[in-house]
């Protein structure tokens, strides 16, 4: 039966190729779409997490929106935050270990808008934590016109230490390249950014680090109680909020995936149905020779399955190539391809295609051989 199936597919090379391509696109499209969506969201989440703070204090409830420059806070508030007190296990404690003020602004670099973090290098938690050993080259900024970039932006824009970059009509010299993954892709001294943007004494948010994991939730509440108008969010709550946001995205991606697979399934249905019509005579011969309905169904379904499996394999390869292409063309975009999601979509593509082949296969199995052979 194997040679019958393979030879039949080989004899209709163009049609087989179209069916394989349809499944491939149906599989690759959702993999890349989901990869881009989750990749971008998780990257934002990771960057906020990797700053290394326990609580973010700002005027917005969504720290992912900090780049939009929503509201500013007096920098002097930082000292007051350090003095916040909470009740913990019957004792009054000062839970805050450090407060890092951050001013977030947006500047155009290499033709794209990028968030710029104005920070105090000695207080920004990531520089002592996530990025402690992540200085790829150079050093952290020290002077007013010095800039640190992350390695992805550096690679994308072809920047290196010693280069000058225009930010808001002022030249900054790159003094260091850090590993990407915390906060923004561009870092300058807080006072430089404040001066440049006319935001003297103002910041966008405070990254608060607590002395003990048990203090985090109470600290966030205490800050909101003590400083009306400020919002706090803990890293745990942030992860929950992002996960909640992703649930909505799951529906969107599910809809797009369903649409892509529906089109692929319809192409398979049409291809298989046309093949069955074209092969009415062959099917009639097989039945006249004594082929059972099961045999005919198996032949047609096996052909469909083979097409879909080939399509899914090509789709996985196509998705990988698209990821590679996106990485080259848009180096700052992240396409997250997890094994489970990738192979899940592959399996879904095979299942949908096989399902689409069932109706034509059953139709073929019930064809009357007499009708076929009567007109020979």
């Amino acid at each position, binding site marked *: 039966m194997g*040679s019958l199936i393979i030879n039949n597919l080989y004899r209709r090379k163009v049609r087989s190729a179209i069916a394989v391509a349809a499944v491939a696109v149906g599989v690759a499209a959702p993999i890349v779409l989901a990869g881009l969506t989750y990749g971008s969201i998780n990257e934002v989440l990771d960057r906020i997490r990797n700053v290394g703070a326990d609580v973010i204090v700002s005027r917005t409830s969504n720290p992912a929106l900090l780049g939009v420059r929503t509201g500013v806070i007096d920098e002097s508030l930082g000292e007051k935050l350090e003095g916040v007190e909470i009740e913990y296990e019957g004792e009054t404690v000062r839970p805050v270990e450090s407060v890092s003020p951050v001013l977030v602004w947006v500047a155009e670099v290499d033709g794209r808008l990028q968030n710029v973090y104005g920070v105090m290098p000695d207080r920004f938690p990531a520089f002592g934590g996530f990025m402690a050993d992540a200085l790829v080259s150079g050093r952290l900024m020290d002077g007013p016109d010095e800039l640190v970039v992350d390695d992805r932006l550096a690679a994308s824009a072809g920047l290196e230490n010693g280069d000058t970059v225009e930010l808001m009509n002022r030249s900054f010299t790159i003094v260091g390249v850090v590993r990407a993954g915390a906060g923004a892709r561009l870092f300058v001294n807080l006072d430089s950014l404040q001066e440049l943007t006319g935001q003297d004494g103002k910041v966008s948010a405070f990254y608060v680090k607590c002395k003990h994991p048990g203090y985090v939730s109470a600290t966030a509440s205490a800050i909101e109680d003590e400083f009306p108008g400020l919002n706090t969010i803990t890293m745990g709550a942030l992860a929950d909020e992002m996960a909640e946001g992703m649930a909505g995205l799951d529906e969107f991606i599910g809809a797009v995936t369903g649409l892509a697979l529906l089109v692929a399934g319809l192409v398979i249905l049409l291809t298989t149905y046309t093949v069955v019509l074209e092969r009415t005579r062959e099917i009639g011969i097989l*039945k*006249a*020779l*004594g082929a*059972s*309905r099961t045999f005919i169904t198996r032949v047609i379904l096996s052909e469909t399955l083979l097409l879909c499996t080939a399509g899914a394999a090509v789709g996985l390869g196509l998705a990988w190539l698209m990821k590679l292409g996106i990485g080259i063309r848009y180096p700052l975009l992240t396409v997250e391809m997890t094994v489970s999601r990738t192979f899940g979509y592959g399996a879904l593509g095979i299942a949908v295609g096989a399902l689409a082949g069932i109706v034509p296969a059953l139709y073929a199995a019930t064809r009357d051989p007499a009708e076929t*052979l*009567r007109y*020979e």
Partner: protein
Amino acid sequence: MVVKTALKAEGISVVFGSRDNPFVALDGVDLEVAPGEFAALMGPSGCGKTTLLHVLCGILRPARGRVWVDGIELTALSDAARTRLRRDHIALIFQKFNLLPALSALGNVAIMKRLGAVVGGASPDAVLETVGLGDKKGNLPSELSMGEEQRVATARALYTDPAVILADEPTGSVDSANKIHILDVFEKCNRELGRTILVATHDENVAARADRVIVMEDGEVV
């Protein structure tokens, strides 16, 4: 003593077309072919020979009448059982050969085993040797002459172990050399292996090789 017939048809009627415009293809045909007999079914085109063969092998269900093959009443069987009976007891040879275009000559013979048919002792290669196509086993039907295609179709029929061979104009599309070869194979099957053969034909030479000639006209055996 009951003598079992290899093929028996009783009052077979087949009507094509619509109720308003019916075409009677077979009209109360009675027929018997004894085990080991080589019979030729002759008659002008359109007289119902092919339709009768299709009824006898069970791919066409008659409007009226009954058919027995090797003692089994074919017309009383379900669709699946008729398919099994055809596979295991009847070998079909068609005028247009009806080879599967995707398979080689060898594949077209060997497919019978894949279909679950009971095959004889000879291998597909050996059967192809018998019909003189040992050197063309790997050729696709499109790479064979019409005569060679018909010989592959004959080999396919011989590969199984049928009680009855039904052939529809097996020499209608082949040259005289192939015709002689095919008829020699039929005769050998009949004389040496005892196979029952019913051949629908226009060809007097084919009829001359048969033990008996059955003549049809306008859907009736005359």
